[in-house]
């Protein structure tokens, strides 16, 4: 499809941070529709800050974010929430809602502000989200009683119910066991096949190399803010030299001999 090649998001010399002080600066990135992009880097390098800035939860310190060619900062909030969904690393479960109630809140940008009733298209979106995240057995449970991994899947389901064009995930694998990490990989690839664009902060190089089309790596500099260390296709940029430089530690890359195509990256002592 020609359309799937179109540019959906562009970061132009973006600086992200808090209260006008940059945590990350000088980021350039072009994201095509239907691609999966990972933001990688060491602890405190500003991955989450960058993601929150793209979600417009915090204003950009400098530079520009263009969404389908338009300035992100000028987009009305309700429209933004229809185009872009954001899943935090940990979602607050201060209120005793059921899993299904929480997922239903993903419909908020598509509903009137006073509207509680779920229309037919809302119901369909909620059902799709529950099925995609395999939460049907938990739908009646309270979000205060489920595990961290289950809550993370609930948060992802809520963002899917939002039916966004771009999905932003902050460390989506943080609380997931191997089985659910693997199903998340399948889910992301499935969403990608439906032309959804995904940008995610990730530590797991194995996950990145198997699922992502692009990886952007940020690294702290001696003078303060992090900068972009490298960006590109995982096969090209996830080299031993790049990774050692990114994480300031000795690394080895081991290819799975039974599947040389897999591009698996592991680290060992």
């Amino acid at each position, binding site marked *: 499809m020609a359309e799937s090649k179109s540019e959906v998001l562009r970061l132009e010399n973006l600086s992200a941070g808090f209260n006008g002080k940059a945590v990350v600066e000088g980021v350039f990135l072009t994201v095509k529709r239907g691609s999966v992009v990972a933001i990688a880097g060491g602890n405190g390098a500003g991955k989450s800050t960058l993601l929150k800035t793209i979600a417009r939860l915090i204003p950009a310190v400098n530079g520009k974010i263009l969404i389908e060619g338009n300035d992100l900062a000028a987009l009305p909030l309700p429209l933004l929430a*229809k185009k872009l969904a954001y899943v*935090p690393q940990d*979602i607050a479960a201060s*209120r005793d809602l059921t899993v299904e*109630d929480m997922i239903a809140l993903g419909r908020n940008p598509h509903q009137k502000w006073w*509207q509680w009733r779920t229309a037919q298209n809302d119901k369909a979106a909620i059902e799709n989200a529950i099925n995609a995240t395999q939460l049907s057995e938990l739908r009646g*449970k309270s979000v205060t009683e489920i595990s961290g991994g289950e809550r993370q899947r609930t948060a992802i389901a809520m963002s899917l119910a939002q039916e966004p064009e771009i999905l932003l995930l902050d460390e989506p694998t943080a609380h997931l066991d191997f089985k659910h990490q693997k199903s998340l990989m399948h889910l992301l690839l499935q969403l990608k096949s439906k032309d959804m664009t995904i940008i995610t902060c990730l530590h797991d190089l194995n996950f990145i190399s198997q699922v992502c089309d692009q990886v952007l790596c940020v690294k702290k500099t001696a003078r303060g803010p992090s900068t972009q260390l490298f960006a590109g296709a995982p096969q090209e940029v996830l080299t031993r030299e790049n990774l050692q430089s990114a994480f300031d530690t000795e690394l080895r890359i081991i290819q799975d001999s039974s599947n040389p195509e897999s591009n698996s990256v592991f680290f060992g002592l």
Partner: protein
Amino acid sequence: MTSALPSKPNMALRLVILTGALMGGFITSVCIGDVFVAPREALELILGGTSSISTPGVADILTQIRLPRTLIATAVGAALAVSGYILQALSRNPLADPYLTGVSSGAGLAVAAAIILGLDFSLMPASAFLGGLAAAILVAQMARRAGGLSVTRLILGGVAISAVCGSLITLIITQSGGAPQAQGIIFWLAGGIAGRGWNDLGTLSIYTIGGIIATLLLSKQIRVLTLGDETAQALGVDVSRLQWVLLACAVLMCGAAVSASGLVAFVGLIAPNLARMLFVRDERVEIIASALIGAVLVTVSDLAARTLGQGQELPLGTLLSLVGGPFFLYLISTSRGEDA
């Protein structure tokens, strides 16, 4: 498991019981006093406008004193309860209420100033509202931090504002040189609805009904806000605008209540907490239940205030604090110390 969840019919039954309790309390309050009136006669008079009461003056006592007073008690209770519900939702803390957040004392100071300046009584709700709003804005500014309100700072700031407003009220009273208005302030500070009539009900009921309707309309957004400011914003909610609108609703209702009844503490704290214990997982039901519980509490307390005292009325606010204080301690000892 979700076994702790009451079923839907159970919740409906509880709402019916609450409504019944309010109606019962209301009728009892209208009937009991220095002169006793049979409930049937009272109902005939209120609903039908025809009176079978033969004793001269009794019908007037009912329609001109007890009925407006009971209606005011109902409205004050509902307004304070929903105001408390909003403040608890805003701060994500079950301990917040119009007092702890400084709104009541700000309203109180403004009314005290208005009384001493000899302003017309019709201006009381407006001055209470402005005072409450000023206090709320001050506290909110102090509690403001990147991406929302800090609960700890909100309550610390509220306590500080309350202390300052309390001192200023004392200053006004002591420096008034024994003016008759000072007596009025002291009486008013203890909280009570004695001597209020139909004139006071108009403004109060408009603010209360308007505030409750606005809160019900915003109930879905209140639920989204429980997910945290960032998640709410990502779901298309203009978080700071919503916070200001909710704060304005809380201040309006609280200000109207304070101007009608003086400082009546703890209703705003107890009613929403009871409502959340009795009705889970539906903000709309919780808001209605808060209003009903608050209305029952103040109506019954006002009845007790004017009937239990030996010859003289007990201060309503004092009576409620006597019950509210221990309940507050109980809440503190059982809450999970969430402090973000």
